[in-house]
């Protein structure tokens, strides 16, 4: 905070605040920090209240502390433009969870006000990172998803570069005889892929590179430098964002020996069957005879822990479609479909019903035990646990394995990123490059690079089209935000970015390794090379840095140290323990707000501070807290592990890893390890808070007061 800064503090007395605490006393508190007595208003968010604030702002106040309700509400009303820094202190929520007109409640709100003042004093004005950016979208993959993304972006007025490794556009659909229906007639329909390819090829805003691959990608959103390997040699292009739509690979049926994959004649994948059908009459491969019976084996490799543990989502409809081909070709043909579950959700059920109604289609649930040769090119299928109530044997002229989808991103090879964290999109599960399946579809862990279609998730052509449109729009949004120096989600619009005091960097690589988004590259000496436009402002690097040299203008290690030090610590004899709570702003803080809304009662001895992500937890804060004489620290972050909920993928996990190394520090201070506890909390866990906090207060009571209270100032 500089001389020219003018801070004003306002206390709202509405929403029970005035009735619960001594506002007059509170209003005088800013003086301790050299700030004028707080303004008061009974209805600060109302028109008159906001007018009052506006007036003060117009008269020079450029740092405004609103001591009223949670910062998660009315952000728009308390927005006075980019030149005015606004900080919020949630007195209302503090009052709601505490006993009114109680000495402890008064101490609580006083501490919150102090922390708010300190935080605002330590806040700098973020200068957005603005560059001259390229607005073109690079689409990798020219199948249904890639072409859809290209057209969506081009129709929205962006230039598009489309790179396809094969000699023609169309991808998987180009090889199909027909697509399965998604509406209306419930008959297989033309793929329409050639027309779509024409549209792409003829679009004035789309430049297509055929028989080409990506040699390398470096840079950041708005300035990706891409080398494309074309038949004419390498071409350097620049793009603002990237959509990876490289599709899927059918699961290798050679791995399915029990289903005759790769060993038994006339046992083929649905993809191969489709090629045969597309070429004309369906003839079986071994002897070009027309099959009079065909067995389809569903979930071939899918929903199987030993192969692909997930449902590939398109196989059921594909086999039903192919059954139709056979029945059309020969009305006396028999088609068997052995399934684990028929999965034809939504309107697809109507096609299933239609095919079910066909006299020559025989279906049963069951576990296919074996597919073996039965002489003369035929196959024998043994199916256990069938709906027919017994193990059955069926002979067919050929068998089609409905092989599942493997993401083309698995094992990489598409993007060749020059990023420090690796050349491809990080995988979430099973080789799919998703980042946060609950909140942020399309988003990968590489800012500005969006996965669309079957590369991202098993999906069919119709879903891929929707997916690709979404990804194209996200790519455009990303460039637009980057051009304004603003973050994408989860901290949408944030203009801060990490700055490093390089002179004190020890090249420990913690930041470059732990950033969930691969923001940092490294030079040869392992000095981090930030790419601020890749940053999502989670602060993980700041939490990781043992030198504490990474900070944001409005979010820093020092800021939180100061806030912790601003907490009043009563002497041991007062029997008023103090527990610091550091809570994730994405899920845990909303849970606290909800607890307040529900008027749940929480201990008045807690002091809650919201963090951008628990991944930004710097261990020095715990040292600060205990040195100050606080008795315990509770950390609330998102669930991690397989079903993680962290918005930044690994924040809470990294925090708990850092905590595992804490015991040593505590030991050095002769403090009990029970004084620190990490608790995973979901956004809807408000009702659990009184219990969790109550339990922890009992632990603190048991281990006794922090002996450092004596020495704290």
């Amino acid at each position, binding site marked *: 905070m500089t001389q020219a800064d003018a801070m004003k503090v306002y206390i709202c007395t509405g929403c029970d605040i005035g009735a619960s605490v001594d506002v007059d006393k509170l209003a005088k508190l800013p003086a301790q920090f050299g700030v004028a007595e707080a303004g008061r208003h009974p209805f600060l968010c109302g028109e008159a209240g906001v007018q009052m604030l506006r007036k003060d702002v117009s008269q020079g106040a450029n740092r405004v502390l609103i001591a009223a309700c949670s910062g998660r509400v009315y952000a728009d009303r308390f927005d006075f433009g980019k030149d005015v820094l606004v900080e919020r202190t949630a007195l209302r929520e503090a009052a709601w969870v505490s006993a009114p007109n109680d000495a402890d409640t008064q101490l609580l709100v006083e501490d919150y006000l102090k922390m708010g003042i300190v935080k605002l004093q330590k806040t700098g004005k973020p200068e957005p990172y603005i560059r001259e950016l390229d607005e073109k979208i690079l689409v990798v993959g020219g199948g249904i998803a890639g072409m859809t993304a290209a057209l969506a972006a081009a129709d929205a007025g962006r230039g598009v570069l489309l790179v396809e490794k094969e000699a023609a556009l169309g991808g998987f659909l180009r090889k199909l005889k027909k697509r399965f229906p998604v509406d209306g007639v419930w008959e297989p329909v033309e793929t329409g892929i050639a027309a779509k390819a024409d549209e792409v090829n003829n679009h004035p805003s789309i430049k297509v590179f055929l028989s080409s691959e990506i040699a390398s990608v470096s840079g950041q959103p708005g300035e990706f430098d891409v080398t494309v390997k074309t038949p004419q040699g390498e071409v350097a292009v620049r793009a603002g964002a990237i959509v990876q739509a490289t599709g899927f690979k059918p699961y290798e049926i050679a791995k399915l020996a029990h289903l005759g994959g790769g060993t038994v004649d006339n046992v083929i994948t649905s993809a191969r069957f489709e090629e045969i059908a597309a070429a004309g009459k369906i003839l079986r491969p071994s002897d070009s005879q027309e099959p009079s019976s065909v067995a389809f084996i569903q979930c071939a490799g899918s929903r199987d822990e030993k192969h692909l543990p997930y449902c590939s989502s398109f196989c059921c409809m594909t086999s039903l479609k192919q059954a139709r081909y056979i029945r059309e070709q020969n009305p006396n043909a028999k088609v068997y479909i052995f399934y684990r579950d028929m999965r034809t959700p939504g309107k697809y059920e109507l096609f299933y019903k239609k095919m079910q109604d066909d006299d020559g289609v025989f279906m049963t649930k069951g576990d296919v035990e074996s597919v073996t040769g039965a002489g003369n090119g035929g196959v024998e299928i043994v199916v256990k646990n069938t*709906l*027919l109530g017994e193990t059955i*044997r*069926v002979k067919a002229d050929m068998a089609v394995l409905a092989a599942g989808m493997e993401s083309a991103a698995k094992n990489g090879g598409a993007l060749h990123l020059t990023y420090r964290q690796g050349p491809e999109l990080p995988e979430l599960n099973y080789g799919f490059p998703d980042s946060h399946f609950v909140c942020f579809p399309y988003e990968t862990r590489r800012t500005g690079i969006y996965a669309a279609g079957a590369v991202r998730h098993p999906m069919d052509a119709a879903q891929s089209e929707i997916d690709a449109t979404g990804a194209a729009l996200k790519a455009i949004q990303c460039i637009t935000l980057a051009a304004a120096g603003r973050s994408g989600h989860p901290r949408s619009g944030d203009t801060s970015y990490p700055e490093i005091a390089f002179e004190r960097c020890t090249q420990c690589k913690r930041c470059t390794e732990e950033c969930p988004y691969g923001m940092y590259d490294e030079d040869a000496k392992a000095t981090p090379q930030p790419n601020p436009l890749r940053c999502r402002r989670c602060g993980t690097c700041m939490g990781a840095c043992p030198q504490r040299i990474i900070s944001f203008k409005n979010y820093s290690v020092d800021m939180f140290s100061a806030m912790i030090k601003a907490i009043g610590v009563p002497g041991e004899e007062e029997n008023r323990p103090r527990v610091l709570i550091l809570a994730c702003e994405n899920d845990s803080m909303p849970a606290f707000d909800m607890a307040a809304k529900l008027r749940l009662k929480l201990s008045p001895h807690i002091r809650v501070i919201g963090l951008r992500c628990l991944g930004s937890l710097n261990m020095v804060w715990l040292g600060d807290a205990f040195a100050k004489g606080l008795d315990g620290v509770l950390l609330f972050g998102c669930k991690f592990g397989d079903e993680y909920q962290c918005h930044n993928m690994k924040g809470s996990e990294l925090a708990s890893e850092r905590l595992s190394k804490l015991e040593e520090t505590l030991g050095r201070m002769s403090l009990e390890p029970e004084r620190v506890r990490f608790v995973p909390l979901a956004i809807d866990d408000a009702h659990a808070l009184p219990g969790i906090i109550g339990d922890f207060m009992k632990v603190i009571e048991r281990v006794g007061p922090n002996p450092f209270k004596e020495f704290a100032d």
Partner: protein
Amino acid sequence: MDKAEYLEPDLAFIARLKRAGGESVKKCFQCATCVAVCDVTQSDKPFPRKEMIWAQWGLKDKLFYNADVWLCHQCGDCTMHCPRGANPSEVLAAVRSLSLAEHAVPGFLGNMHSSPAALVPLFAFPIAVLLLAAMYANGLAIPAGEIIYSRFFPLAVIDSIFISAALFALITSALSVKKFWGGMKRNAPQKAAPDAAAVFGALKDILFHKKFAQCRANKPRYTGHLLVFFGFLALFATTNLVMLYHYLLGRETPLALGDPVKLLGNAGALAAFAGVSYIIARRLAAPKETGNATYQDWTFILILYAAIITGILAESARLANIPAAAYPVYFTHLVFVFFLIAYLPFSKFAHMLYRTAAMIYAASNSKTS
């Protein structure tokens, strides 16, 4: 595993089944709601879910030679609750309808009973036989004086015709049931041979209409069937008692209206008439609840109805003393009765054979050894 036999779906059978009233068979997706709502089915390997997939797969041998198809009483509860409109109740009725021809010995008579065109020869035969008999007895002349039907058809003539017809029905019934029984044994080997308890249990269930009583969707069928069943039993008993009167006691027809046998016969006729009337009215008024009636259903019901009505009319005409009406009506009555008795194992009437056999088979098979 043991080498199971290859399953071979029969497309032609599926087409036949659809034509016979099971057109919705392929709609079943095996959710087993039918099994859950059926009050008649047994808990071990319940029907009709498994029959539905056999039918979808055209596995006719499993369907034809399976007791469960006949344990179904076509209440329609399953059809009413089926979420896919697969109508299991109708499908099983269609299977039973095709079974009649399948099991029939001799087979051609079975086939004739599933074809409307064959009604001509099927009726022509009893008409011819009875005409010849009447010609032989009295030259087809309408006897003068008091109406006594034995003057038109002497008892010896009548009895020789109808006892032959009954014997024919008995023998062909036995052969047909034997075929059915053998098939059931092949498909689901018996745990124990049927004992007296199994037989009496089944007969008790039939007599008291226990299974019909469990139906919900088509509750009124219980009443209809009960009336026809006991009406028919009464008429059957009357016929035999009249024979006893004649051969043992020398008492001749027509019996006095107050005669206990006459009372039994008239009561039976009225009960059967009421029952069939009710069944027909229900079928016409509530086709959904009663289920699609097959060709066999209608021919059987209508011929039965005709036999009852002509019987009542014949008696009425006799009492009203209108010879010109009485004798032709009586003749017609005998044609219908002949149809019912002689063709019993081939018409829907045969349901009493197969259902009884199936109930006994199932009862003996459900016993734990």
